[in-house]
């Protein structure tokens, strides 16, 4: 399989893009770039415009303003069928009147690839997605996971410059979802495939992508690696959306958060100016309205919650759930938001414990305006 234009060089550039649907502005002044060979996850809550952005890049949706270019060439006048961007749809969009082989071969047929080569490449790609020998199966007989693999094979076999995937795993159950995710990551990496993967699930985005573009209200809020996002979510909304822990807003008139001891509902806390408790640096991408500062708040991660022996405050365990190999307990303290912490499985609901906060697990955030 050739990987001619799949690695290195200039990739996708989206500049000042605005899109309206039925007089409703979906995308506003959006900027996005994707390097060749990069897997980018477009992460955001439902309704933020992810799908519209993807469809605009694919050429299925006309932009009102702005440009979409590939390798420096503007794609505005290039219709969808000439862009050579592959797309995987959430509902697979397999052609119901054709079998698996014919579905996967469709793009190659459009490119007038000779039959023997077409057969070989279809077989090779089906093998790659774990469906070797499925050529003659009817698409109606496939399970959801199989159908999604066929859809992926159909898009990848044409060696698209860019793969666009629109929440392809949203309809799958969790174990299947996780297995497919790992497979897809491996296949894309192996092919050095440039890809944009749309999802509203941060775990999916973190597991799959090199880079995550966080999308909110029709624009890209921030582009960062999964590690950067996790280590420094910068603002309360992001921390909350990524499910990193409890966001706590100090009462008005509190002293500055660094250098002094803060009184929290969970006991006193002293933060240093050094990482990881540093204040947010710079404005998020594409906006500068918060540059002057605004309120600050704290992200209290589960690892900050520690048992305190005789010190600390008394908290009631309101809920316990097992996540992977750890147990997460929810602690209630009167007048404070619920706090999540990793704790030994011996804790039972409604029991009370004394807890304290470890500054190492606390990150300072910019409060939402």
């Amino acid at each position, binding site marked *: 399989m050739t990987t001619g234009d799949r690695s290195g060089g200039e990739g996708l550039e989206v500049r000042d893009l605005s899109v309206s649907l039925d007089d409703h502005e979906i995308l506003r002044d959006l900027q996005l770039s994707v390097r060749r060979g990069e897997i980018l996850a477009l992460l955001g809550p439902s309704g933020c415009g992810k799908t519209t952005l993807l469809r605009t890049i694919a050429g299925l949706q006309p932009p009102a303003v702005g440009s979409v270019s590939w390798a420096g060439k503007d794609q505005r006048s290039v219709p969808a069928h000439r862009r050579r961007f592959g797309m995987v*749809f959430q509902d697979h*969009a397999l052609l119901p009147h054709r079998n698996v082989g014919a579905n996967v071969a*469709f*793009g190659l047929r459009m490119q007038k690839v000779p039959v023997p080569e077409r057969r070989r490449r279809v077989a090779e790609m089906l093998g790659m997605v774990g469906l070797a020998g499925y050529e003659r199966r009817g698409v109606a007989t496939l399970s959801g996971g199989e159908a999604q693999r066929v859809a992926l094979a159909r898009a990848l076999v044409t060696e698209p410059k860019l793969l666009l995937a629109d929440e392809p795993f949203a309809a799958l159950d969790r174990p299947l979802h996780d297995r497919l995710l790992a497979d897809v990551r491996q296949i894309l990496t192996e092919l050095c495939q440039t890809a944009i993967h749309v999802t509203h699930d941060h775990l999916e985005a973190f597991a799959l992508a090199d880079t995550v573009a966080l999308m909110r209200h029709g624009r890209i809020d921030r582009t960062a690696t999964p590690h950067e996002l996790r280590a420094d979510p910068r603002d309360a909304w992001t921390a909350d959306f990524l499910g990193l822990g409890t966001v706590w807003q100090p009462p008005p008139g509190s002293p500055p958060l660094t250098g002094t001891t803060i009184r929290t509902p969970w006991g006193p806390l002293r933060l240093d100016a050094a990482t990881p408790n540093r204040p947010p640096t710079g404005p998020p991408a594409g906006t500068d309205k918060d540059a002057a500062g605004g309120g600050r708040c704290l992200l209290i991660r589960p690892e900050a919650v520690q048992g305190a022996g005789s010190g600390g405050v008394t908290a009631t365990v309101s809920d316990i759930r097992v996540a992977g190999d750890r147990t997460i307990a929810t602690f209630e303290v009167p007048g404070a938001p619920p706090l999540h912490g990793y704790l030994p499985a011996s804790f039972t609901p409604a029991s009370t414990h004394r807890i304290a906060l470890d500054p190492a697990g606390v990150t300072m955030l910019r409060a939402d305006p």
Partner: protein
Amino acid sequence: MGGASRLRKAAPPGLAAVPAAFIGVFFLYPLVGVLTRSFDAGTLLETWRNPVTTDVLWFTTWQALASTGLCLAVALPTAAVLARLRFRGRRLVHALLVVPFVLPTVVVAAAFLSLMDRLGVTDRFHHTVWAILAAHVFFNYAVIARSVAAYWSQLDPAPEQAAAVLGASPLRVFGAVTLPRLAPAIGAVSAIVFLFNFTSFGVILILGGPRRATLDTEIWRFAVQRLEFDTAAALALLQLLCVLMLVVGATIWQRRRHVAERLRSEGARRVRGTADRALLAGTLGMAAVVVGLPLAMLVERSLRSGGSYTLANYRRLGQGGERLQALFVSPVAAIRHSLEFAATATGIATLGGLLVALAVSGRRRRGAATLEGAFLMPLGTSAVILGFGMLLVLDRPPLDLRLSWWLVPIAHALIGMPFVIRSVTPALAAVSPRLREAAATLGARPARVRREVDLPLALRGLAVGAGFAFAVSLGEFGATAFVVRPERPTVPIAIFRLLGRPGEAAFGQAMAMSVILLVMTAAAVLLIDRLRPAGAADF
């Protein structure tokens, strides 16, 4: 962005230009011809004031009302059983019930003639309103049973259950809850059936005879037999106005009655208990008597000649001979004509219908409905008016088609095209836009998308529509009676002529030909029902 906007439309609206021109020239132009003729003649009011006209209008109306009422009484119990009971062979009963509706009117008339003959009551009932009513019940029984059952089976049974829990007896539940909920479906189908009965032609011409005339048979008598075009045009205008009033009234009533019902699929339950079994047996027995008996008698009569069972009636069809002088051609030739006309008409209707459906499916909802409605107009116009209009206007240059072979297939194609549109449009609308987009991102040009995605997925609907167009053409009588050339009769025309001839031999031959037409039409219809995807539109 060119590519994107083109994708949302399945096809440019220009596609509909050819069928639009076809409808314009062969449907609208003749219709306008009828209107102008009726105004120009100057005898309009004179014809309308004539007491004979009043009598005809009165008879047309009351026989249609009586037929509709009788149909409802007979068909509603069947609808209940089809909607609420699940039994073996339910699908087959469903399929068999369509047959009467698409049967050619002459075949139905012939079936009732043989039934009366068998029962020995021909003298008492032939040329009376009773024969007409019975034939109308036969025709529309399935229309009512199927369409009410389709609606009924999707009604959520929860309100009925709630009423029962509150202490209402089953009869009370039906009267107070079910019947009012069914009112929209019953009202809509009653309006359609009334329209069919009001514009019924073949049945009344054959079973009603000269004593029982309706507007449509009078139009034919004045135009074809007496060549009094002015009077025929005046009557045609009267008929058009009545139909228009009916359609407008029914639409307004339906809008007002419209209730948002929560529909769900399949509320049918298995047959259990003696009551269910008795109900089922009664219904199937009723269907057998209403639909099966006349057809069985038709087949029986066709096999009888000179007091014994024989194939003589069928053998005589092949012979030209002196006996068939009035036909000019042998019945076998008529079968050949019918098949040629039907094949041509189906070709035109299928192509035109497909183009219209493609154009409609590319538009936004409101525009699509208007465009589709324009092409469905021939469905709401009586075939007699269509045939009369064509006779009136297509007889002079540049469109002198009086002697043309094409006149009959064109008329049949006009009547068949709405069926094709009605079967293809839903099939195209059901094609997910995602599929088109997927094909586009894989490199398919818009035209290629249409060929690779839309066309294959609409093929089934297209086959169903083509089957209907074929069946309709085979049995078409109303328009054909106006535009047919005497030396090129279709099977229904040949049967009509044979029935008009005295003698046992001609009658036997008419029965034999009716059976052949019956078999051809039934085969087409059963084939359609096999192809029809579950839940597709009913006509």
